[in-house]
Structure formats: C-alpha cells, structure tokens
C-alpha cells in the first residue's frame, strides 16, 4: 500500500466513524426502517405472494429511489465538508500532507460506506420481509439485481452531487432538497427529452434494462444500459473532480473571522 493510499484509508475510516453522530444517525436510521416497515405492513394486511413481490418493486421505486436514497445521501453527503467548514475543523485535514484530491476521495468513500451501512441492511430486510410473505412465488429474474443496482448506483451519484453542494454553498441542504424534490422529482414527469436531465431517468433506465418484470422493468427510455450506467458515474466523477478543485483552490473558511 502506498503512502497516499494509507492516508486515504485513514481518512475513510475517520469519515465513516464521524457520520454516526447526532441527527444524521437518527434520520438515516428512520429512513432505513421505512421500506421494511411498509412491506411488513403490506404483509400484516394480507398482501402476500406475487402481489407482495410487486409491492416490493413499488416500494423500491416510490420510496427507496424517490425518498430514502436522495434523503440519506443528502443528509450524509452535504455534511461531509459543510460541517467541517462551518465548525472550522477543515484545516486539521487540509494542513496535512495528504493530497487535496485524496481528502475529497477519502471523505466521499467514507460517506459512501456510511450511506451503504444504512441502505444495504434496509434493502436486505426488505427483501427478507418480501420473501417471507412470498408463499411460493419468487422474485422475477433480474428483479433483485435491478433494485440493488438502483441503490448502489444511486448512492454513488447522489452522494457525489451533495458532497459538492456542501462544499460550495452554505445553503446546501436547501439546495439539495430543491434538487431532490423539484429537479429530480418534477422534471421526470415532463414529456419529451426533459427527463433526460435528471439522474432519475438513467437510474430508472438501468433498472428497466436489468429486469423485464413490472414495476421495475416498465420504463420508457431512449438510452441503452451502457449510457444509463455511464451518465450517473460520469456525473459522480465530474462532481468529485470539481470538489477537488474547490478544496485545492477556493476559500474554505467559515464566515467572517472574529479575531
């Protein structure tokens, strides 16, 4: 392991541990509990078999992709730099010999690992609850892979976007909410090519390409799997590169100093 890689690993571990504190922990846990709880409620109300499996797909689309994923990554991503800037702890990192881009990557990977700590168990329990009530029915081919890819790819791209927002603006939470619920949610409802300027469009395309079964498999799209994978990953890379530039060359102090 090279010296910079070791430093990166230390920062990933620091960031990961620092995520599990305060309001972020509780809100992310609450969001993680929602999908399994709702599927459990379906089960309690007698929804079983193929209907429950279809319900799983709808929960993934309407709750995980539209609410849990953007909110969890917003809560975790915005704070990766914003909290440090506001509390003036960023110099503890930036004045070390770890390279500035490594700080961005380390914080991103730590934040992503933390996001997956909430998202993957939530996903696994949701699958378990659905399987428990399947009564002999099975998940359609590709359904679980499709849903899991949504979670993984979605967390990759949204976290990078929110990390950048947290770095460049004090109003990152508000901006992030506007992005998640106006840009991503509203624009995808427009006709024509407008939905293509949302990340949702590409995530939904990936999901639809990996399974043919409803509801995950039904989505009208004009791009293939390769492009649908490349665009979100490209956005994540661009966001991280921009973040590296910001950390390297732009002011990262809180408001006007007192002293």
């Amino acid at each position, binding site marked *: 392991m090279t010296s910079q890689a070791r430093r990166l690993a230390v920062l990933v571990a620091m960031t990961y541990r620092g995520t599990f504190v305060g309001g972020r922990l509780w809100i992310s846990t609450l969001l993680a509990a929602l999908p399994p709880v709702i599927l459990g409620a379906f089960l309690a109300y007698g929804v079983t078999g193929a209907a429950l499996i279809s319900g799983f797909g709808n929960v993934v689309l309407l709750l995980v992709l539209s609410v849990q994923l953007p909110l969890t990554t917003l809560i975790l991503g915005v704070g990766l730099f914003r909290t440090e800037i506001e509390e*003036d702890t960023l110099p503890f990192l930036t004045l070390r*010999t770890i390279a500035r881009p490594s700080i961005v990557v380390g914080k991103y990977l730590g934040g992503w690992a933390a996001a997956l700590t909430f998202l993957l168990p939530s996903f696994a329990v949701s699958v378990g609850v659905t399987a428990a009530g399947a009564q002999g029915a099975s998940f359609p081919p590709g359904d679980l892979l499709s849903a899991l890819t949504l979670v993984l790819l979605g967390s990759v791209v949204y976290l990078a976007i929110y990390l950048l927002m947290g770095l460049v603006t004090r109003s990152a939470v508000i901006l992030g909410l506007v992005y998640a619920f106006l840009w991503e949610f509203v624009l995808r409802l427009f006709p024509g090519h407008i939905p293509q300027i949302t990340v949702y469009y590409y995530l939904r395309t990936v999901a639809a390409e990996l399974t043919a079964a409803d509801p995950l498999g039904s989505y009208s799209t004009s791009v293939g799997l390769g492009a649908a994978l490349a665009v979100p990953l490209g956005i994540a890379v661009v966001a991280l590169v921009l973040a590296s530039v910001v950390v390297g060359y732009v002011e990262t102090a809180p408001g006007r100093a007192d002293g």
Partner: protein
Amino acid sequence: MTTPVVVATGATKRYGEVLGLNGFTAEFGPGITGLVGPNGAGKSTFFRVLAGQLHLDAGQITILGRPSSAPVRSNHEVGYCPESPTLYEWMSAEEFLRSLLRLDGFEESEARRRCTEALAQVDLLSSRDRKLAGFSRGMRQRVKIAQALAHDPTLLLLDEPLNALDPVSRAHLLDLFTRLAESGRHIILSSHVLYEVERLTDQIVMMSNGRAIAQGDLHQIRDLIDTRPLTVEVTTSDPRALGRALAGWEHVTDVSFPGPDKVVAQTRSPDTFYRALGELARTGDVPIRGVRGTDDNLEAVFRLLAE
C-alpha cells in the same frame, strides 16, 4: 542578520464591503512573535490566510519564503491551532492526534510515539482515552496545540491559544512555547491580552481594523498601557473569597460582581495583577476557572496608538 519567517506586504482581504485585512504590513519572527489586537482586528483572518483557507484580494504574504497563495504540497513545516474550539467530538484525544499524524504520512508506531509525546507536552496524557466531546474548553485548546506541534513543524501558528485556560494551564503552556522557541521553532501567536504575550516575547505586532498599528519592541507600547487601568474578569466558584483577596491588593482599584460566578477587578498594574492571580490560583485557596481581560481598555489603547 535575522530573517523574518512570515512577511506581510499590503495584505488586503475583503468580506464583501468589510475589510478583514486592510493593507496589513508586518514581519514575524524568527522566534516568538505576538499578534495582539482587539476582537475584530483581523487576527484570525490573517491566520486563515496563512493556513490557506482564505486568499488575499491584494498584497502578498510569504511564509518561510514561499507566497501564501501557492498551493502547499507539504505542510510538515507548519502547525496550525485554529481559534474554533470544535474538534472531532466522536474521537478520543489519542485517536484524534494519531489519525492526523497518519494523514501526515507517519507509520502507526511513529504516530503513536509522537502522539504520546505531544499529549505529554500539553499535560493531557492522563486524558488520552477520553472522548473529545467531554473535554472542557481549556482541554480543547491544549489538544489543538498538541495536534499543531505533534508533527514537529518549523513554524507554529497559534490563534488565541491561551483563550479559556485557567492560570495554571496558561503558565504551563507559556513555558512550553518558550521551550519550543528555544529549540529553534518559530511561533506566531495571537491574543487580545497584551500581558500574556509579553511574558513570552518582546517581538510584537499590534493590529487594529485590519492594519498593523505598532510593531517591534513591546516595552514602549507597554509603558503607554501601564498608565491606563485594565479591567479583568475572573470566573470562580467562590466569588466572595476571590473578591476579598482582590480587594486586599494595593494595585486593585475596584472590585465588582457582575454574575454569580464572576468577579471583575480593575487594576492599575496589570502585570502585577496577573502574577498575583497566578500565585493565588497555585495556592488552591480560591478556585479560579478562567481569566479574561475585557477589551474596553485595551481598545482605548489601540485607538490611542492608531491616532
């Protein structure tokens, strides 16, 4: 011939319409240099420029011969103690220091050794395993200082390092800074209390409204200040006992009790006052939790110097 370690020439930093630094021109070091000024003078802005957090709008600052605007690739030469008391609260003191040392590229065993050494220097070895969230303001100051010096930098930038410290801790750190300077390190430390800086160095830069208003030998500046009374606020759990003690000192001209745990004294001889208060704290007869020189009188001196 002595070469300054930090040179500011016409350094200007704007926050919108407000000037944080206003053509600030001064030289710092070698050895210890005190940067003294009231709150809002621009001291923290200056440190943040040195730390690379802020960029100048005009002028320039060189640190160890390099312009502050140059992207710093290796910061082993600089240790920075920011003013903010916030730390990584979820970590213990040892984890905090060790992690930062690992980010500096030290191997685990070396990081552990340096961490122990730095915590010992600030007298925090016994609290090494405690979570930082439970640290008092004074302990936080000492942890920040420990992280600034753990990697053995050439230049230490200490923004208000003596804030919120009890007299015993202050004395301990003043001794530490002296030892560090004697071992060849350069220190720039800021304070709004001239008298604590005076115990460390004769080299001083006085700052007001983003400008250097006096620089060089402290004694002339001190003579000016000694002709004016100074007001000091002391925090204690036994204000009656402290008030009685202070009232007995010849140089104290007024004692008042603005809060249940606060005593405010006015003294004609700040130097004597701080020495006597340190002695009183060491005896343990009166518990003293904090000392703060109020700015009003100091600002009057700054205004006088600025005229």
